[in-house]
């Protein structure tokens, strides 16, 4: 695969959040604000890129029986390291992400890319795939987090100081008072509904693009659907 194909797959055609629907649990649970969505997205991106490279380096040398076990071990070690680093240098973000940080281990996106892509590809391509898939996931986290924060709290980027330092919880853009927020957007059902709407928009855009181009030029969507 060429780099542009890898990026097209990660960001659009096989976007982990909107097409493969991988890692739904953190996707829905953490995205109550732009800041926490961005934080978890970056952490996942870092873990995914690093695990892809490591898996690509060792994958083919491993006996088939223990391949998955070693991948899980690698991913767990990486996630633990990222968690410790965040606890040391970004304690606010560490507290905001809570249990979902160690749970990156169980994000099937990471293991899925290790097994389906990185273990069969050279390190460079695996790194690109990790960055592309991680960015695709990050974009969905940030989009969903922004929508939910605006609807639910009437602000945008109100807790970005957790990531980038600075003082107080009064940064970001304020649109209206938090007491007028649309509470459902912050609750888990609201997350499902909004993600559903995002999926619908994506499908509509895709359908329009398909209708606009001749069938021959637009191959059927190559979706590798995995259960999340």
């Amino acid at each position, binding site marked *: 695969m060429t780099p542009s194909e890898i990026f097209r797959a990660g960001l659009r055609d096989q976007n982990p959040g909107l097409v493969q629907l991988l890692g739904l649990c953190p996707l829905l649970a953490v995205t109550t604000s732009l800041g926490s969505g961005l934080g978890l997205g970056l952490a996942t991106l870092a873990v995914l890129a690093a695990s892809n490279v490591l898996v690509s380096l060792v994958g083919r040398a491993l006996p088939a029986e223990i391949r998955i076990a070693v991948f899980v071990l690698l991913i767990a070690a990486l996630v633990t390291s990222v968690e410790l680093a965040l606890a040391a240098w970004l304690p606010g973000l560490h507290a905001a992400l809570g249990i979902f940080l160690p749970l990156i281990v169980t994000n099937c996106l990471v293991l899925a890319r290790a097994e389906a892509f990185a273990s069969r590809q050279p390190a460079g391509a695996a790194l690109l795939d990790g960055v592309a898939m991680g960015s695709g996931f990050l974009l969905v986290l940030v989009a969903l987090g922004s929508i939910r924060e605006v609807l639910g709290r009437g602000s945008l980027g109100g807790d970005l100081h957790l990531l980038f330092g600075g003082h107080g919880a009064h940064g970001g853009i304020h649109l209206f008072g938090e007491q007028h927020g649309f*509470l459902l957007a912050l609750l888990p059902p609201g997350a499902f509904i909004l993600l559903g709407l995002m999926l619908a928009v994506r499908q509509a855009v895709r359908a329009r693009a398909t209708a606009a181009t001749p069938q021959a030029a637009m191959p059927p969507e190559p979706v590798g659907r995995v259960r999340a």
Partner: protein
Amino acid sequence: MGAAPEPAFRRSGRAALVLLFCAVLAFGAVSLVHEATRDEVAAARRARELARFDEVLRGLRYDNDLLADTILVHDAELLGSNGPVTAYRARLGQEPVAVILAPVARNGYSGPIELLVAIAPDGKLLGVRVTAHRETPGLGDEIETRRSAWIESFAGRWLGSPPLPRWKVRKDGGDFDQFTGATVTPRAIVSAVANALVYFERHRDELLAPASTMPP
């Protein structure tokens, strides 16, 4: 591999060795990271706790090491926790200026609510903060300072103002506001704070004792 297929036991033995090797490597790497971040993690945790104490003490001055000057107290009924509860003592000079208790309100709407309650030596409340809860967003979470100033209504209160029987939400005939649509949460907190004050009254001497008389 050679011409003859490898025997199964040798194959699995080799796989086990590789797995062991990987496990040792991963363990070593995580240990290194842990070692490299240990001091920062401890410092960050300490800074976070001290920031919370500053909030609950409302800027009260003290000059001792709050996190070291502690005693463990135990009262399942009044402090809401079956295990020991830490009491932190703030002092200026050698004089005690505040005791911070960390009681738990067990009858929250969805699970226990953890509190910090700062009490002056004369039994007046300096401040109350919620440190952990799972109350309904938008209804019960007005106990957070981020959402409303309700929790500030405890500052300056003591067991004579209002008298103990009126340490209830208004709906139950007490002096404290409840929130629209959420009575259980403030009710739980009001009673937990009152219980903490009762505990303080009963154990004042023990709580305010100088650090030096503590058993090591």
